[in-house]
């Protein structure tokens, strides 16, 4: 009866799963934290799964295994888009809702995709760097060629520079592949080759630790700009060793990710004026949601520490 009164409740064994690659890495934790919170508010069970490795084949194996347990929905970060088409479609067929986050599989039948706008992130980062340099000078980028969202950020960064800041010159590009030692070596080499280098941008946080150290040793003239944060990055931002970071709104990704999943699992809650019933199309489909991002600077850095956040909330993070 209570259920009839309140449709926004889960059935006793309704389970929602979040599936990622490199699952031991902290980027996912705040996402899952809010995913879990939303689920608890609905009285649903959740599970955090994925492979600790950076390997699409292994991630699909974990995805398939999760599917074998017939969960109500999966919030997935597909490491590569197309390889997930078939598994996602299989999930939809067996009645498991699928929503992608932070990376998409656009050609699959996933109901929704939630992400921050990588292009906007790259564009903003470019503006911030260029402004600080007075619109004039040399910059470089560190890349992780092959990872889609990273490539988008870098491309947007460079495109914005070329379009809006004609006096900003691209001095060099190097592949750091998320490895701090490679980033360290690359930035040292770049500063040697280009003594006037004023900024370096990278699309993730791992490289930044090495890059910032190299920049510091190079005399501190190079502004380090990146995407994502972690405790070390935050400390360096506060100390002025890192210029800034664009950080996707992870909590929103998780919370809205859950909502989208839950809705997709319960499409009969609405009765829209369209052909959904006839065509078998999911009536609750919301193709795209932008979760937004924050700009992390010395002033607001304190709000982004994971351990402080966890303490404040008193939960066990991904371990529940």
């Amino acid at each position: 009866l209570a259920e009839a009164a309140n449709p926004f409740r889960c059935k006793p064994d309704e389970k929602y799963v979040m599936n990622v690659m490199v699952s031991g890495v902290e980027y996912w934790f705040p996402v899952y934290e809010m995913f879990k919170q939303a689920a608890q508010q609905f009285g649903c069970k959740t599970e955090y799964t994925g492979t600790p490795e950076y390997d699409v084949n292994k991630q699909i194996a974990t995805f398939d295994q999760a599917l074998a347990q017939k969960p109500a929905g999966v919030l997935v970060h597909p490491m590569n888009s197309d390889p997930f088409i078939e598994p996602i479609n299989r999930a939809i067929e067996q009645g498991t809702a699928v929503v992608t986050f932070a990376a998409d599989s656009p050609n699959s039948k996933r109901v929704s995709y939630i992400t921050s706008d990588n292009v906007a992130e790259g564009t903003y980062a470019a503006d911030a760097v260029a402004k600080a340099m007075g619109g004039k000078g040399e910059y470089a980028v560190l890349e992780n060629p092959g990872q889609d969202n990273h490539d988008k950020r870098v491309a947007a960064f460079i495109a914005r520079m070329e379009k809006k800041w004609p006096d900003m010159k691209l001095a060099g590009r190097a592949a750091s592949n998320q490895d701090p030692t490679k980033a360290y070596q690359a930035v040292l080499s770049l500063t040697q080759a280009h003594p006037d280098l004023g900024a370096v941008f990278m699309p993730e946080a791992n490289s930044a630790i090495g890059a910032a150290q190299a920049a510091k040793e190079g005399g501190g003239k190079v502004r380090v700009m990146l995407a994502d944060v972690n405790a070390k990055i935050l400390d360096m931002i506060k100390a002025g060793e890192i210029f800034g970071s664009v950080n996707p709104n992870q909590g929103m990704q998780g919370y809205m990710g859950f909502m989208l999943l839950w809705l997709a699992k319960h499409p009969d809650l609405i009765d829209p004026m369209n052909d959904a019933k006839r065509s078998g199309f999911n009536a609750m489909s919301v193709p795209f949601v932008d979760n937004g991002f924050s700009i992390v600077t010395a002033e607001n850095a304190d709000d982004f520490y994971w351990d402080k956040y966890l303490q404040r909330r008193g939960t066990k993070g991904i371990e529940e």
Partner: protein
Amino acid sequence: MAVEIKPAGRRGNIARMATLREAGLIAIILALCIAMSFASPHFLTWGNLRAMMMSFSIEGIVVVGMTILLIVGGIDLSVGSVVCFSMVVSGALFLSGLDPWTASLIGIAASALIGAVMGFFVTVVGLNHFITSLAAMVIVRGMCLVVTKGTPLSLFTLPPEFKALGQGSFRDIPYVILIFVMVVAIFDFLLRRATAFRKVFYTGSNEKAAQYSGIKTSHVKFWVTVLCSTLAGLAGVIYMARFGAATPTFGAGMELNIIAAAVIGGASLNGGSGTIFGAILGMALLSVVTSSLILLDVSVYWQDMIKGCILLAAVSIDHFLHSRKF
């Protein structure tokens, strides 16, 4: 002098020894499976087993080539890159208008060519397999980046009959698994019985003695190197069919997993010994462990650690059962 001659059995000693060897691994895998089926009701479902087999079938094809290469005393660190290369070349050719089957054949041929170049450096120039294949790993990965310009090729338009190769099934048994079982069966048989493959054992066991037996060991090494790359190329094409995509970063780090599987299965890094069946069991062991941890919902922080410990324990038990040196 009393010479006692035992009648030679139907199967030779090599085959029998190998079977015995593998019994230990089979026992360990079964024990794990049984324990798991108590711990998780999902484990022994066809869905889960299918997922597990799917996850190692294509890699298993590469393991076959690697095992033969290890037997001849070589090693190939470039397999991950070559898998990716075959995928990327076939994908790019398909996108440029070729039909997918022809494109795949060219992709596999290109992989074989890479094997031939490595074989050249090993047998003619005289470098060793490790350093040659390490350089090849870097070069071929670079070629993947160049071909794709760093972005995954979307092969959404692959015709369904080609995609079926990677995604379709025959009565609930995926083609992928069928192909894998076929490749394993063929090469396991050949390795035990075919004359040509016996030379692989001779060369790996004592290259000089093989030369003193009139075996052209550099030919043997060359062709085995080519075979390993060719099988990696085949795997790449099947991955392409399965994923409908060609990603330039695919397969990075795959080589260690594959070598580990072969070594767990009894292949020696010094050459001269190893079996395909054993290597596949090694692969299965790794897969069962990984998959158990996920099903048991072990914390991600602990997964790696527990996985490594189980691996070490399994290898030690196996070693203890046969007291053979790995």
